């Protein structure tokens, strides 16, 4: 990159960074305000658990409640709370989980996150690649039987919720045919280790959740890309190139490249919903990822843990967004050289 070009690039990246930080701040503030705006006893679940566990001794429960209220308790002015909340966030302290008390939320979450990444990233990328390819080919062969096939299947497939597809896959391949395991991240009784047995078990359990995310996501990408290809094939620059005798293949290469750029941004914007989908898919498959722990946190109203999950997920999404912006800025000369903002 020539030196002169560096400045607009940095300016762009800097602006995006600032914007994401700002947005993250807004998100964090929402996360902070929500529990305080709505009354309720977040400790109820924990207390009831002790109550049910046979320690029906009223004194015990009152004592525990007192002790916990102090620890999780509020009462200070809201601004002080907010600042200390931000301060703790800044130090990476996401608080103590109620249900996993006395575990720190971060410690509770840590083991689940790699599983989600392990599922989400390859699945999303695979879907993105296959979907874009299919869409591009269909758009390029517009009006042929292949285009119709891709378009019509995509229209239906893109509307199949991940989780329902997951259910169908489990029902078909696990329950009826018995080809794949019905649930979990690896076979019960195995202890995680760097052994052939364990790794094959993990991969074996990986197939269905992976497929359910990939298949459900392909359609959306294919539809979008097809449309973009059609637009681009009709774009002035394409027509000009064709009329100059450029080969169809070369032209298509250009078009595809130009489409991938907006689709990279699409990938970033889509990450949130992809993550949401993956979380629910994990739930369906009892896959030991973040979705599973989120569901547990939600069903037990473990608010510190819920907050921590969202703080982390949103950070992850924004980080990914920023990475994508960065890549985008490098790949797209218009942004790199400071002309326009892209689409």
């Amino acid at each position, binding site marked *: 990159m020539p030196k002169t070009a560096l400045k607009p690039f940095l300016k762009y990246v800097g602006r995006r960074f600032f914007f994401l930080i700002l947005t993250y701040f807004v*998100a964090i503030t929402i996360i902070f305000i*929500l529990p305080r705006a709505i009354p309720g006893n977040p400790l109820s679940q924990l207390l009831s658990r002790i109550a049910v566990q046979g320690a029906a001794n009223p004194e015990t429960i009152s004592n525990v409640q007192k002790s916990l209220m102090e620890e999780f308790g509020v009462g200070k002015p809201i601004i002080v709370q907010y600042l200390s909340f931000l301060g703790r966030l800044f130090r990476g302290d996401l608080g103590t989980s109620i249900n996993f008390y006395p575990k720190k939320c971060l410690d509770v979450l840590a083991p689940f996150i790699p599983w989600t990444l392990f599922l989400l990233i390859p699945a999303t990328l695979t879907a993105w690649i296959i979907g874009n390819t299919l869409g591009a080919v269909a758009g390029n062969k517009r009006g042929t039987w292949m285009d119709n096939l891709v378009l019509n299947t995509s229209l239906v497939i893109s*509307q*199949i919720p991940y989780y*329902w597809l997951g259910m169908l896959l489990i029902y078909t391949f696990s329950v009826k045919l018995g080809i794949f395991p019905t649930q979990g991240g690896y076979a019960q009784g195995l202890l995680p280790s760097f052994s052939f047995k364990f790794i094959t078990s993990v991969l074996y359990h990986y197939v269905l959740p992976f497929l359910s995310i990939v298949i459900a996501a392909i359609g959306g990408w294919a539809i979008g890309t097809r449309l973009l290809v059609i637009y681009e094939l009709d774009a002035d620059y394409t027509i000009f190139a064709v009329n100059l005798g450029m080969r169809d293949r070369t032209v298509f290469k250009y078009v595809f490249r130009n489409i991938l750029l907006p689709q990279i941004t699409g990938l970033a914007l889509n990450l949130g919903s992809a993550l949401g989908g993956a979380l629910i898919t994990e739930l*369906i498959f009892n896959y030991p990822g973040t979705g599973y722990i*989120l*569901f547990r946190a939600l069903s037990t109203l473990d608010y510190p843990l819920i907050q921590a999950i969202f703080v982390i997920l*949103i950070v992850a*999404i924004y980080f990914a967004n920023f990475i994508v912006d960065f890549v985008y800025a490098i790949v797209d000369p218009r942004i790199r050289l400071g002309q326009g903002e892209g689409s």
Partner: protein
Amino acid sequence: MWKAMIRPLFKSPKFIVGMTIFLLIVLMAIFGPILYPKDPTSFAGMPEQPPSKEYPLGTDTYGGDLLAKVLNGTRSSLYVGFLVAIISMSIGLLVGIFSAMKGGIVDELLMSFTNIVLTIPSILLAILIASYLRIRSLEVIAVILGILSWPWFARAIRAQLMSLINREYVYLSRLAGYGDFRLAIEDLIPAIATYTFMAFILFINGGILGEAGLSLIGLGPTKGVTLGVVLQWAVLMEAVRRGLWWWFIPPGLVIVLLTSSLLIITTAMDEVFNPKLRER
């Protein structure tokens, strides 16, 4: 004009297929619960029965009639979908139009706000908000989803208006001394009507899917049966792994038919109205 817009639609096989499926489901949602008046929430009958004459779609673990649940669920899901669409469309139109007409600092502020909402992952935020609400009616769910899904539409509307505003005839209306509001009504809205209609359909789609997603993780409506709630119970009761297909296939199928028929309708409309996609 009206005729010219509608007629080409009915030449599109996609539009006809999509519309037929959609209308059938709407009819089912409206008349189903009347023609099959079993109470969807009552616990009665034999548990986990496969479809039979008495229970056309079988029963769940508590003997609930699944046909009744699916019919009422379709109705509620559609209701949520429409509410979401109305809410997000209204906000989107308001923000988009206001932003485009006023311009300047108003535009800048509104667009920053829009971008922030757009960047915050809406599904996660919906989950977060819903998790704090103890009593969630269908309307509350719709509001949560509605207030999170408008930004892309607002941006698109603004962009469209901006390009329209620069056109001469709008300029002429301005010269003629029309106020901004009248300008908006008379000249601009017709120009963006088709687009808005298509967005409306997509919002319904988003609403239905969003509700189902929220319900599935246990954050759906606390009162009433939606398709998502039926699915949620199927998951909670392990209907899938226990092979109770009649429990989870019908509600999911209705969702897919409903949303894909809507998507097919918009695709068809796009092909008919969008000059770039029209086959010359």
